[in-house]
């Protein structure tokens, strides 16, 4: 699994000697990274999920549910409840909407 640091690599200097280009990890790479460190660095995983969830698109949607689920697993019920609610508000027909409803109901 890629680490956070190796995900941000620098390219080789060009023949013209211009400044090295920074390769920004894709949302999918950041998501995979967060999934990999859920048990070892849960705070960092939540942070990555939260950054992704602040964006748009499918990976933002997945990250929001993953964050809510992880928060529940960590015992952070209030945070989990808010995140499930946010998921259902933003993605009421999302692929994890049924999961979110079920877990959210258990939290009530």
């Amino acid at each position, binding site marked *: *699994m890629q680490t956070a640091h190796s995900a941000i690599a620098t390219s080789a200097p060009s023949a013209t000697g211009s400044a090295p280009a920074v390769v920004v990890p894709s949302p*999918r790479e950041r*998501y*995979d990274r967060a*999934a*990999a*460190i*859920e*048990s*070892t660095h*849960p705070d960092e*995983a939540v942070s990555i999920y939260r950054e992704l969830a602040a964006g748009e*698109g*499918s*990976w933002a*949607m*997945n990250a929001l*549910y*993953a964050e809510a*689920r992880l928060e*529940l*697993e*960590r*015992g*952070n*019920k209030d945070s989990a409840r808010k995140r499930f609610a946010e998921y259902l508000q933003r993605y009421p027909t*999302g*692929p*994890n909407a*049924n*999961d979110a409803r*079920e*877990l959210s109901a*258990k*939290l009530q």
Partner: protein
Amino acid sequence: MLLAALAVAKPVFADDEHTGKIVTVHADPRFVDATRVALVSWHVDVVASEAETPGTNLAAALEAARRIARAEDARAVVWIEGGSLWVYDDRAHAVAVRPLPSQPPWDEATSAALALTVKTLLLSAFEPPQETHTPLPIRHEHETPPKKKTPPPAPMHTVRILTLAGLRVPTNASDKLAARFGAEVAYFPSFAHGRAGIAISTDAGPSVLVEHAPYFEGTFTDIIAAAQLRFRVPLRSWLGLELGAGPGVHFSALQGSSSSLGLAGRVARTDASIEAILGVELAWKILRVSPLVGTSFLLRYQHYAASGVQVLDVPTAQMLYAVRIGVELP
């Protein structure tokens, strides 16, 4: 209860050792990869299998998934079939089903979302035994440690709706065969894991001809209603045996006339019976086709006479040869 599972699941997966294995059967490679990513923090191996999928017949699927789990030494089996995601938990011997957001193949993001559903459903499959629970390192201190083991994924109850067409023999009437058509509703509760249930059924058919010239000419009709206990024995994911037995009621009537005696009329009876069936059930998605043999044993003797002349002696035991076709719904 689920929260308890969520809270206690972590210590198991925090170990460096692999803590388990799940098998995906005939799954899309992207979905398999996404499941590996989702479960990597739990140190769970995800193995792709090309074994026959357990299918959608709940009772048969449970057995087939159990065989796969035992053969692969896995705690869970995941497969996609019938527009649903199926997750079998070997520890609980239970299966959980979720509708798919779309049909495969999926893109990476959809595969990841589906993998999150698997992760959600698998919590209890990888929950440690109650006596080995340890405090969760990252749980807030003010929270009370969970004391109750979480329930396994709820097994499904199913309802089966079938129609029937067949023949009853013997009739002891002029028509040697009686065509029969019927319907049945069966319920298999979740706690029986699809192996036992109850059914109510009815069958009826065109009247059979009763001729005893010159004394009598008429027709005999018989409508049967029954309630049965049903037991299913899965043999394959698509094949099973079904046994059933229970009480029944025959609503029968003989009507006709005697030209020689100058009589005409109708007599109706209601008689109790014992009904039983033995069927072979073929399953494809939600469709169920079942050739069956049944028997109906009347608890009262049915003897019809016209002015002392016997015109019909209904057989105490009748056989039914039929085919049922219908659907099974979760």
